[in-house]
């Protein structure tokens, strides 16, 4: 049984893992944002959801990585509201990014892939006129993208249509009254 578990873990790592993260202490994105300067030029590993857009710029892909609770439990999937998003920018080499085989970044009705990113944290990088970002050297997919559903809200829709009908009747009746009055 134990062997089977180990084997399963290896297979999962082979399927999901693109490249094992290099040694680098794992840092919560919330902690990183609270004191960015403390991690400047350090090799760190962060865990988060790829969100927004994949900005393909030459040899690099820019993407935002969110390390908040919504990465694991999106609101649409029943996750609780825990405040604003917590995100940092990541710059991933095109080749490494391509290995991930990502479809879309996270957004409405779409939880993006959750990844472990290892790289160097560049705080106020003078070569990029003061921007802060993670320059990624290794990436591992922890959880694949997830499509979420949200259907119509029938009660608000019904009430809304009823109110519109009421407005139409009101307008018609007041128009008739005005014409009758003149």
């Amino acid at each position, binding site marked *: 049984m134990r062997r089977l578990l180990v084997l399963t873990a290896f297979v999962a790592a082979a399927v999901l893992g693109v490249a094992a993260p290099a040694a680098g202490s794992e840092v919560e994105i919330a902690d990183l*944002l*609270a004191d*960015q*300067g403390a991690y400047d030029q350090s090799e760190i590993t962060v865990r988060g959801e790829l*969100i*927004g*857009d*994949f*900005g*393909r*710029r030459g040899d690099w*892909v*820019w993407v*935002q990585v*969110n390390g*908040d609770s*919504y990465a694991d439990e*999106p*609101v*649409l999937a029943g996750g609780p*509201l*825990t*405040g*604003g*998003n917590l*995100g940092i*920018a990541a710059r991933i080499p095109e080749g490494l990014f391509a290995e991930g085989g990502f479809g879309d970044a*996270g*957004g*409405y*009705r*779409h*939880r993006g892939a959750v990844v472990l990113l290892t790289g160097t944290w560049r705080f*106020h*990088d*003078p070569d990029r*006129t*003061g*921007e*802060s*970002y993670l320059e990624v050297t290794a990436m591992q997919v922890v959880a694949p993208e997830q499509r979420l559903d*949200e*259907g*119509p*809200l*029938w009660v*608000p*829709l019904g*009430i*809304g*249509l*009823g*109110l*519109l009908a*009421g*407005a139409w009747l*009101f*307008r018609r009746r*007041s128009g008739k009254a*005005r014409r009758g009055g003149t």
Partner: protein
Amino acid sequence: MLIKPDSQDLRTISFYFGRVLQVVAGASLLPLAWALLGREWAPASSFVLMIGVLALLGCALACRRPERDRLDWSHGMVVAALTWLVVPIIGAIPLAFSGHYGDVLDAYFDAMSGLTTTGLALVQDLDHLASSLNFWRHFLHFLGGQGIILAALTLFAGGAGLTLYYGEAREEKILPSVQSTARFIWGVSLVHLVFGVAALGLVAFFSLGFTPVRSLFHGLMTFFAGFDTGGFSPQSTSLGYYHSPLYEAVTAVLMVAGAMSFGLHFALWRGPRRSALRNLESRTILATFTATLLVTFAGLAALGVYGSVLGLARQGVFHVVSAHTGTGFATVPGAELAAWGGLAFGGLTIAMALGGMASSTAGGVKSLRIGLTLKVVKDQIKEVLLPEHAVVSRAYYQSGRKRLTPGVAQAVLVVSLLYVALYLLGAGVGIAYGASLQEALFESVSAAANVGLSVGLTDPSMPVLLEVTYILQMWAGRLEFVAVFSLFGFLYSWWRGK
């Protein structure tokens, strides 16, 4: 003796208020169409509800035409104040149903922030919000920045136009009639819309590597929030999301264009351009921008957080432009902004408090009032220093030579003082809840001057009283007090009048 408003007063106010709601209902078809095109069924359902409420209320209130076609000054002010108070309540419906707000008050906060072009936000998990709801949030900036009432004026006005126009805190009529002025303002905005969205979209596509659809989406959202000096952003990291000096530069141009008075736009389009730059307002804003920029630069240099001059210049210029124009975009997280401290913090706070030009989409005290206040002080000093019988010329240049009468001086000083009082009120409430003076003042100025930069006090977990204070600050700051006082005066007369 207070005169109690009669049924005709109420009918006049309700008629014009109803017409404005009908116009907003019509405008709200756009986010509904957006949601249907994107097959976003849940937001579409809540948009239908919102439009239904607006339409029914609008039709009910405007069903009986008043006997008097003209709006009194006080009627126009009351309609304006009511519009800016009630439209966010109804506009909050789709936000409240989205599941991204802790409670209804948070949704109302965001709707008020959107409409008043403030940009402070309590939305949670913004990065997963439906695009149609994002469009609605930004479209609120556009409606508010251009003026809902201005939109209504282009469709109907009659004798009502002028008081409604002034009620929305616009101070100069550019063309002979209010309707032609309204059309000019819409014309300027639409030209900026086309060129602004095209420029931002092209940068997003070619330089940032976004897909064509997403480039257009980001371009449109940034345009609404930039030109209307709003400050909402479709992503949680604001303008820092784009990591692009070029995108920031295009946005900065739009922010400056938004903070310019439409009178200055008119002069720049149709001339004489030189006289526009001679205006007291133009010279004042150039001086205050330079001063606050230098203070911020000095503060950032002293902090030593930017290793290069270019880095310091990029962050400093962008944030001062964002603060002075009342936009509120940031390229750094709130926690980092809070850590700026000292002179940089002071430079930004002063820039926010001063605000943009009169009759623009920006908030704050406004440059013309600052210029006139300084002129009054200068004249007073001159009077003291000159011989007793010397006459001090009290005139200034603003689209022609104008006399600085005691009435104008008094009005300017009163409104400026009211802004200071409003800033202090919010700061006091913030301090009462344990915030530092620096942070409480920063956030309060940001709310009252309709800016939107935040050091983190505006948060879904903030106390209700502080949230309500910021809502009232955004409302009063946007309407520049007169319409707000008129509404309270009207209600008081109704209650106690005879």
